[in-house]
């Protein structure tokens, strides 16, 4: 019996505290659970996640959709292997994109997930209430930015007439199986506006270019209201943003030309893309967003907009195609930061919003004053000549729109301008057109040239959602119809 007793004692000791025993985390390595607001801050401070490539500041790409880009034959012959077919399909505004997924769309929704995580969970984490409130506001701003951008690309222009058209899926939970169908445009707008409102509650000054602040909240609101042509609010928030931050980069004094590989490259302080300085030097953005696209071939239209002495011309260089590939004509590539473009709300954008609002009010002096606030930084002082005052509202708006195009090429700005202006009808209709080739079965048929035209207000202005979303939700999330 003695041994049985011993056994019982041993067993009792071993059986007890089982759950506690199993509670230890499997790893103490650098794979941690999110426990405090510090962890959230660390996630939002991630301005370069090379591993997952979904850092918050990564923006949706628009470059190939607008008339900023034109793929000339000479360049396509060289760069075709690096230009994915779906890129060409987007470029020619196809109704169907063969690619299953779209990386910048996916990254946007991952960031929306992170925003939802913060909004839903930050209350339970360690950290001060003030910190939490700011993080929640920041999350709303991230969500608003991503949704506004996705709406610009994938939904029709939200005019008063088409509030029932398809908007975005409004995802607010963290559950993977919560897959909401698309809301209508009206609901989407309301949702974005709600997030902006919540975001405007942020109480932080701009410290780091990659984090939200009061300034970035106002700038985002200005961009949003500009898109929906609420000029009162657009002006109000643009001015508010400028009152908080108005740093412009002077291209004569702050941009240096440096020599590498025997070729002249303009840059600010020898900036290489994603270097430490990259995040701080070109600091006219309220919050930094970037797009990555190696194939930014400027159209002749776009290049023609710049005066010869405009320093922004420096960012269009032909040396790479010429030297490495022997392309001597139409060989320019927009190369401000080696395939990276800043696309976040910018001081220049705010000046131009104020300018447009003023122009629309007939206050041409204010309009031009704000345009010149940008231009004065884009010419060597010796070459700088202010523009003449416009004669009409239409002319004023046209001046602003052209300056926006010069200042913010290959970003969402041009695409959203075309949509809102074509819808409005104040300016001449903007018809996009390119000569390319017929696309068949995943192939470019060089034997069959074709001209593609994007008519104003075409349903094609709502670009297709990635196929994976449609297929994996079994059609619960609808595709755009054309």
């Amino acid at each position: 019996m003695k041994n049985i007793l011993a056994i019982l004692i041993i067993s009792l000791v071993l059986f007890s505290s089982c759950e506690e025993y199993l509670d230890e985390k499997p790893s103490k390595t650098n794979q941690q659970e999110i426990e405090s607001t510090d962890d959230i801050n660390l996630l939002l401070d991630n301005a370069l996640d090379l591993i997952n490539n979904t850092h918050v500041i990564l923006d949706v790409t628009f470059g190939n959709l607008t008339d900023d880009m034109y793929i000339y034959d000479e360049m396509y012959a060289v760069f075709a292997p690096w230009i994915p077919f779906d890129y060409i399909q987007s470029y020619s505004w196809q109704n169907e994109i063969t690619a299953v997924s779209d990386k910048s769309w996916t990254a946007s929704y991952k960031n929306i997930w992170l925003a939802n995580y913060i909004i839903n969970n930050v209350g339970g984490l360690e950290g001060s209430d003030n910190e939490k409130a700011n993080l929640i506001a920041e999350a709303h701003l991230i969500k608003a930015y991503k949704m506004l951008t996705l709406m610009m690309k994938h939904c029709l222009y939200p005019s008063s007439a088409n509030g029932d058209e398809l908007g975005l899926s409004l995802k607010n939970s963290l559950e993977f199986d919560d897959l909401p169908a698309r809301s209508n445009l009206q609901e989407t707008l309301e949702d974005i506006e709600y997030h902006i409102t919540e975001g405007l509650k942020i109480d932080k000054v701009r410290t780091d270019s990659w984090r939200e602040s009061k300034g970035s909240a106002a700038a985002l609101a200005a961009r949003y209201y500009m898109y929906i042509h609420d000029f009162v609010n657009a002006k109000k928030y643009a001015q508010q943003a400028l009152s908080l931050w108005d740093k412009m980069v002077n291209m004569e004094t702050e941009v240096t030309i440096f020599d590498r590989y025997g070729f002249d490259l303009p840059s600010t302080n020898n900036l290489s893309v994603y270097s430490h300085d990259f995040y701080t030097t070109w600091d006219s953005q309220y919050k930094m967003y970037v797009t990555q696209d190696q194939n930014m071939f400027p159209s002749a239209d776009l290049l023609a907009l710049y005066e010869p002495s405009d320093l922004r011309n420096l960012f269009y260089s032909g040396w790479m195609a010429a030297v490495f590939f022997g392309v001597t004509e139409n060989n320019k590539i927009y190369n401000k930061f080696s395939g990276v473009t800043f696309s976040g709300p910018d001081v220049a954008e705010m000046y131009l919003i104020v300018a447009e609002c003023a122009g629309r009010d007939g206050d041409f002096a204010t309009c031009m004053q704000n345009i010149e606030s940008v231009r004065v930084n884009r010419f060597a002082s010796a070459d700088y000549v202010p523009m003449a005052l416009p004669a009409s509202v239409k002319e004023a708006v046209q001046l602003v729109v052209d300056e926006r195009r010069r200042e913010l090429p290959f970003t969402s700005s041009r695409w959203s301008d075309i949509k809102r202006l074509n819808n409005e009808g104040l300016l001449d209709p903007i018809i996009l057109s390119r000569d390319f080739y017929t696309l068949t079965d995943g192939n470019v048929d060089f034997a069959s040239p074709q001209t593609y035209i994007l008519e104003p207000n075409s349903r094609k202005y709502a670009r297709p959602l990635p196929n994976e979303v449609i297929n994996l939700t079994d059609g619960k999330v609808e595709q755009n119809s054309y």
Partner: protein
Amino acid sequence: MKKNWNSHFSLPKGRWLKSYWLMRNFIILFFVFNLSAFANGFSQKVSQAQYDRSTLVEVFEHLMGETGYGILYKKSEINPDVRVSLDVENSSVQEILDKVLMGTELSYKVQDEVIVIFHQEKLAEPVIETPQEKKKLKGTVLDEDGNTLPGVSVVVKGTTIGAATDIDGNYMISFDQKNAILVYSFVGMIPQEIAYTGQVLQNVTLLADAEQMAEVVVTGYQTISKERATGSFVTLNSDNISNSPNESIGDNLESLVAGLQTTVDEDGDIKITIRGESSLTGNIEPLVVVDGFAVDGGFETINRNDIDKITVLKDAAAASIWGAQAANGVIVITTKKGNKDKGIQVNFEAYTKMSDDVDLDYANPIANSATQLQYEMLSWQLGYMTPSYDIGNIQSNMTKGSELFQKQLKEYVADGGVGLPTFTMTPELQKLAGLSYKGQVKSLMLRKPVSQNYNLTIRGQGERNQYAFSVMYNDNKQVMKEDSDDNLLVNFRNSMKVAKWLDFDFSVMTQLKNEKSGGIGLNHIKRMAPYELLVDENGNYNHINTNLYQPFAVKNKEIIDQMQAISDGWAYEDMTYNPLREMRSQDFRTKTFNARLKAGLNFKIADGIKYSVGMQYSRGNIDVKNRYKEDAYYVRGMVNEYSVADYDAFVAGTPQTIGEYQLPKGEMAYLKNIQTRAYVIRNQFSFDKVYGDHAINFIAGTELNWNVVESNDNWLYGYNHDKYTTGMPSAYTDVSRMFYSNPGNIPRGGVIDYKTNKFFSLYSNMAYTYKDRYSLSASVRTDASNITVKDPKYRYEPFWSVGASWQLGKEDFAMQYDWLNRAILRATYGANGNIPMNTAQVPLISYVDGSSGFGSYGNGVDHANLNDLGNPTLGWEKVKQLNLALDFAVLGNKLFGTIEYYNKKSESLVAEVSLPSISGTDSQAFNIAEMSNKGIELNLNANLKITKDLVWRPIFNFAYNKNMVSKVNVTDLELYKLRYDTPYVQGYGLNPVWSYNLTGDTNEFGIPMIMGKNGVEYPANVNISATGIYGPDLVHHRGSTVAPYVTSFTNEFKFKGFSLLATVTGKFGHYMYNNSHDFQNRVDAMNYHEDMEYLIDGRADEIGMLPIPTERISGIESYYSSVLFLDSRVEKADYIRLKEVMLSYHLPKSLVSKLGVNRVKFYTHISNVGLLWTANDKNIDPEYQKGLNFFKPERTFTFGVNVNF
């Protein structure tokens, strides 16, 4: 008739209520070692024997407990109604047995320490009858090894006339019958019948019955009689294992176990799977269990010579007791204990292995120098090559040939030329075309691998304990001249009888392993152009251009020369690289220490009821010390790189003097330490009883299991190996560099890692047998772990099995067939688990130090990556398996084997599957994938006596496995992913092989056209992946890289003292990709595939390749991906191989005894003998394809001697 007779002495038909150790020792007693005592040589006294209406079984159990002797009896022969009462003191066992058995029909015989109880009536005790015109026959009975066999029964068939051999194996028998047939039988041996034809002398050799030797199966938790087992077990004994003299035992399992397959990956790592792979992302290798506890590190810490038995558990019922770790099958190893002999047994073995020269051309199939130079010239001519101008190109390396072509370009430009010159083969280039490094590499860097191996085993028994001690040592010299290792393995095992009711078992394993390497291997050789020579005619090191990036990018030597021309003060002027010099100046050492300690207490609570507590503690330590001596390029390059210099001055070409070095000059060393600890504690209750026709076996227990892995690393600079002193860099992060405009980070190590897995398990297993014929089994187990989510639904998910077996052969209707000796039908079904890998339960972030995260990239502040959004339902992977089997033995046990059918369904497999991105991510790992493995396995054995002395023992195994990944929804599967990163695709078997055809036509631009599976034609210069079309819709599925059919045929011949073993293996029905020229026009490519020779010759069509465009075409880069799936890249991988041959010779008994030893065996073994047939005609060994990252193992010869004292 024969059946009835056999059942008395031989084991196969009876259910012997014996535990495993008894059986084992009995067998060892008779076959492995020479017997000494026979008959009444034992006189163990029993201090007290009190029986009150005890059954005979109880008496036997008591006697066993008292004396430690084994008692063998057949349960069915013991009348449970017989009760005995007895009360004696200090009586001998014989006295007691005489009394107890009086009046029963039972008698007994004492053989050394084993008492065999048998039915008296049917077997007359050796009878000496008065000769009455009788025939007389005498002779000696031996086993295969020539040992005499005492106690063999010799009986005239159909009568009760019989005799037994004496201690020297001699017998004499007298009988009346004219045409008598004599039956020789002995436990554990195959009975033999010999016709009496008037001979006077009849010597007989009995063969061990491998099936019977493996009469019990060991699950690791219990030992059960094979007759009662319902599951799929394959048991191998020490003979099987010793037939392949390798340090590790994994090598010959494939040819011994049907359904077990080994494959070799491109790095030479061997992977063992049982019944196909059952997981997509988790572990796919079977669990290895040694003496009841799972061990890490596979077979490495197991001394082959210590193995007594290997049991492979294949199906759900067999393996289910291992629960969450059992989905891939279990390999249970039991080691030898001390033997029952009082004496000490010493065994010594030594062998040497020698390999043929490795095949450098096979491992590195590159085009010859002349061909390469022609191609390089063409590439320059077409403008594919980028010249290196200045310090900005410091990291872009090119071949010597390219340097010379670049020189032509630069001279042309300097002379005012525009565009490209016409490149020519200068005399210098022509000289290169005639050179090859192969001779120098072979003589200076490579050698024939050799190894020396020694093993010493001592086993014996003390008064109350049995012990076994072994030492194994081997010393290996690898292919690379500076690479070697040695390994010492010490095992000690002791079993002690503390009290009548308590056993104590204790064992220790220690492994010490030292590995030494020059850090240079095949991959470094592959990074040389074919015309580079290691040393010049004076034996001095040449500089060799290489595209080596790790651990330190070799710099472009021409640009270094330019820099040195305008600067001085370099810490190391010599910036040449040479792999031979590297090999000699790097000293990489890894010291491994492993220890495993096991202890177990077995309490005998009552008859058939036991309680045991067991624990295993293991600890491992790996110490890495990689020294880069001062002569190593790493040291010279690093110190120079972090010298303080004016980068812009180099750019501008301004002379300067370098004065400050931020890294101390001198040796550098990298240290890494990995520590592992693992604990298992098990409590188990067992019940094993027989009530009349009902036999019940039940176990239940709990197990706690946890393991910890910790590691850390460190870099030393300015290290002095003699004084053990180090220096320090001036800073570790953001350090300015001489060769680059941006600063860099100096490796510091300091990475600390801690991982722990914990398990808590509850298990139970029941077996019930009725009338020795019908068995039912059931088991259930739950494993809770800290790996799975807390939700009890996932954490405590049970694993279970049910099974049944029917001893068909024992039924009356089967008994009438004399040819049928055994027939058992078995069926099982159950669910096992697998530990999910690489997935998290909750969102996981990883911290990145802002200053060191991506070097000088990023915003420079501390931040975190969001790496996983978490799987909130993470649980075990589940594998459900149905197993149907028939075991049979026919024709007097001459032919026996097993046929099995299984259907294995893996469910809840963790895999990264596509999610609609609006959920937050486009892919996430979930327990969601499904896969099936169905198959048939056949194992056939025969034991054939060809002539008096010649025995042939063939073993044939055949396994067929059909694998299908039925569910793993991955939508984003571009074509290019199919070739390298995609082992599973929904709707196809694992490891698919894909291809498409060329149409044979070209388009209007002269580009060959590819015919996709979807009927669309694509020009070869189109990046088909970029269409975004789902990859599997573009290419034809050819099959799998894993063979569905695996067979082996092992033949063992024995003739007198000689034994010859030959194993032939074959794999069929699978495919392989074979590489070719990849059309990458990279300036840093150092060499090209051997197929280039065809391409340069314009014979691309002969090898089904795209021709090299001789004019510049757009999209040439896409050729790279286009050729990956060409039909000509896929080959059938079927083959038949003569895997190994072994010849061994036992010195004759007479000679051996003169030497004063028991047994001496000499052997020679050849492995990797050669391919007998392959489906491909390209001279490719499908198991080791061309161009892998290791040298194909060549024919290896082993010579060894084994002496037993």
